[in-house]
């Protein structure tokens, strides 16, 4: 069942872009049919009303992210577009299988790197790529966390190419954020669009906190017969993701600790509670590796919990993600992931990478330098969209600058073709227009593997823009996995 013309043909599909809700003939794709009917029935004005109601709900619910501006921190309301993004459940099942496969392989890879280093010895991945990386942390060598899993929580960014195929853009293995917005987006949408939920079969997402808790509990050094003490470790109330930290602690029913709430004594980590010190089993840390223990990483730092890494190395506390996981979160390593999957699992990757040129490789580097105006160049070790050159939109001087940076430190850059990211109808000044978006699902691995139902869809609100980060003006959409299997 699809509507002939989405919004009566007024929706300006972009050429060479896959639209999530609207087929090339202008009709609504089947999972979006309920939305199309709603729009056809109620019109744009009702959408605007709902958008206002939605904004109010977000304000009431206190869903926000924190920005630094002039030294003061400001809570900004979380931006959510009124039109959801739909994905058929059959497609999602294949995708999530690929995501789990990928995380399983990456964890085998990290565990190998800090122990036997078979993959380096066999030259599948060039050893110098790893051993020279600042993300390869010496204190982690010889450790094997429980279940052999290092990156327990992974946020993988997916994009669709012009054919509608999901491609992996990057793996976030350190402290990926956004899952709280995925959950809150759904809560908001249920309040604002209850009738749409009645008309489609939308798979719930609210399982995530319980799954996260269960995964973390499965890491407890004291085993499953002692109720584990789990804490979320946050840099504090001024951190940009503080909302998420407190949200997850609240949803899981665990404490939200800062560094100085924890201390090491007698080879154990302790939490300072009102009723005395309590032994901590699992730390879900939302702090970068190098700030968690000054004894291990930055002796000059006042941050961190002195002695934590030593306790962790002895297996007397679990840290998720484990320190050192970031070694696999590198855009150069990224290009090796298909090989990594084949190596450890003996399987073909279910999800494809975006074509990637390594600037370290002289041949590929010359190609990149020659085609800077067509490619997207990314630093290997930044996140949040910073430091990226989008060739076709950059000025000549920006390109020249990038060329020099590449030549100075080729290991630090990769390049990819400019993708025609998929679009979805987005309410822009009262009209529905196509806007580019990506998708960040969240994959958990502890004793078991779990993938969130859909994920966080981030959308670039500026026409033609590919920048989806909320810190840079991006918005979001609720992601609906629509049951299409009866």
């Amino acid at each position, binding site marked *: 069942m699809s509507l002939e013309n989405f919004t009566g043909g007024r929706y300006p599909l972009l050429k060479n872009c896959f639209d999530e809700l609207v087929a090339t003939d202008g009709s609504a794709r089947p999972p979006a049919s309920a939305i199309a009917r709603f729009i056809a029935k109620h019109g744009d004005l009702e959408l605007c009303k709902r958008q206002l109601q939605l904004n109010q709900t977000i304000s009431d619910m206190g869903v926000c992210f924190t920005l630094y501006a002039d030294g003061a921190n400001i809570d900004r309301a979380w931006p959510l577009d009124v039109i959801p993004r739909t994905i058929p459940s059959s497609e999602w099942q294949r995708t999530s299988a690929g995501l789990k496969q990928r995380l399983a392989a990456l964890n085998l890879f990290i565990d190998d790197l800090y122990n036997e280093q078979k993959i380096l010895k066999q030259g599948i991945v060039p050893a110098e790529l790893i051993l020279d990386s600042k993300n390869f942390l010496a204190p982690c060598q010889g450790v094997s966390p429980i279940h052999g899993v290092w990156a327990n929580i992974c946020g993988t960014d997916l994009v669709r190419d012009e054919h509608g195929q999901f491609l992996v853009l990057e793996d976030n293995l350190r402290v990926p954020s956004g899952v709280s917005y995925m959950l809150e987006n759904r809560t908001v949408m249920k309040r604002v669009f*209850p*009738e749409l939920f*009645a008309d489609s*079969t939308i798979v719930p997402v609210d399982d995530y906190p319980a799954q996260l808790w269960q995964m973390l509990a499965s890491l407890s050094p004291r085993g499953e017969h002692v109720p584990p003490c789990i804490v979320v470790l946050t840099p504090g109330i001024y951190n940009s993701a503080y909302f998420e930290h407190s949200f997850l602690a*609240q*949803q899981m*029913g*665990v404490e939200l600790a800062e560094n100085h709430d924890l201390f090491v004594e007698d080879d154990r980590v302790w939490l300072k509670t009102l009723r005395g010190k309590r032994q901590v089993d699992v730390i879900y840390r939302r702090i970068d590796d190098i700030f968690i223990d000054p004894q291990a990483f930055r002796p000059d730092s006042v941050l961190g919990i002195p002695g934590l890494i030593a306790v962790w190395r002895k297996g007397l506390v679990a840290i998720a993600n484990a320190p050192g996981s970031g070694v696999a979160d590198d855009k150069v390593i990224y290009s090796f992931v298909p090989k990594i999957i084949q190596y450890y699992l003996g399987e073909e990757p279910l999800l494809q990478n975006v074509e990637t040129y390594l600037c370290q490789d002289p041949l590929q580097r010359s190609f990149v330098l020659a085609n800077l105006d067509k490619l997207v160049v990314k630093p290997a070790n930044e996140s949040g969209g910073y430091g990226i050159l989008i060739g076709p939109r950059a000025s000549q001087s920006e390109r020249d600058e990038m060329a020099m940076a590449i030549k100075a430190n080729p290991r630090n850059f990769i390049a990819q073709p400019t993708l025609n990211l998929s679009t979805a109808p987005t309410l822009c000044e009262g009209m529905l227009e196509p806007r580019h978006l990506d998708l960040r699902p969240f994959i958990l691995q502890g004793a078991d593997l779990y993938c969130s139902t859909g994920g966080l869809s981030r959308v670039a609100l500026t026409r033609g823009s590919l920048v989806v980060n909320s810190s840079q003006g991006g918005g979001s959409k609720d992601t609906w996995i629509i049951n299409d299997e009866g």
Partner: protein
Amino acid sequence: MLARSVENIFWLGRYLERLDDTARLVNATSHLLIDSHKDTEFGWPVLLEVMGQDSAKVLASYGLEHQNRQQLAQIEQAVMQHLISNIDSPVSIRNACSQLRYNARTIRQLLPRDMWEELNKLDSFVQQQCVETVSRQQRYQLMTEISRRCQMVIGTLDSVMLRGDAFDLFTIGRHLERADMVTRIMDVMVLQTLQPTQLKRPRFRWISILNALGGAESYQYYIANNLAGAAADAIDYLLCYADFPRSVSYCLHRIAASGKALPNSPAILQQVHQLQHLITEQAVTELSTVQLHQLIDQIQTGIIDLHQVLVDIATAEQQPLTA
């Protein structure tokens, strides 16, 4: 206070809580159906059963068939009308609110002015807004607003009402009603998954119900801290977790605390203790669904008896007032 006022103040508490609980139940069910949870076959008519109504009979009175899959939209409409707007329905929000106002009017002299005003506002809000044509979209907001306004009455009361017999009776009424409603909800949870041959029960989670009761996070806390062993589920939580203010256990605790100072308190406390004993006698986690259903039946009988004991405290022979 007057002996005659005992029932009114007690019912005032019950109806206020019923209003709140019914609104929460409607929202819980709507969300449950929204999520089309796979672990249940919750349908609209079940809501009528929770409220102690014969769903087939009620639907027939709206000209509908109980199990007719073709009439789903009309059944939803009828059930909602019966629970929200139909003033003649004994379980509608409008009816509960009228009863609330009636009881308040009868014992107005016992109520602080601010509370009387909040009750008037609540009543005119409910009578104006709870109309037949509430859409699904408005329903959520409406139910939430009704709950909020009930909270406001409670807050006002906490802030200005004199502590004494009237306050105690009101508090008992609220918590008795709450225990009653929570037990009904649990019963439906159990009945929905009850299979005659099943000995071990499935793990109840029912996040929507817990959400509507404001207990989703504290349930997670309960589970995360393993407060009742690894086998605990939403049933244990709603029945036994005395720290959660909507658990049966908490309600009984509050009733006992408020009943202590009332005349004839031994009779009240004895009845409460019997109920508490029912719950603590054996680990609830160990029960099969059949046993659970029986336990809930026993609790409901106990609640009815407790109500009677409370209402009777005023009808005792009039001895000279002491103290």
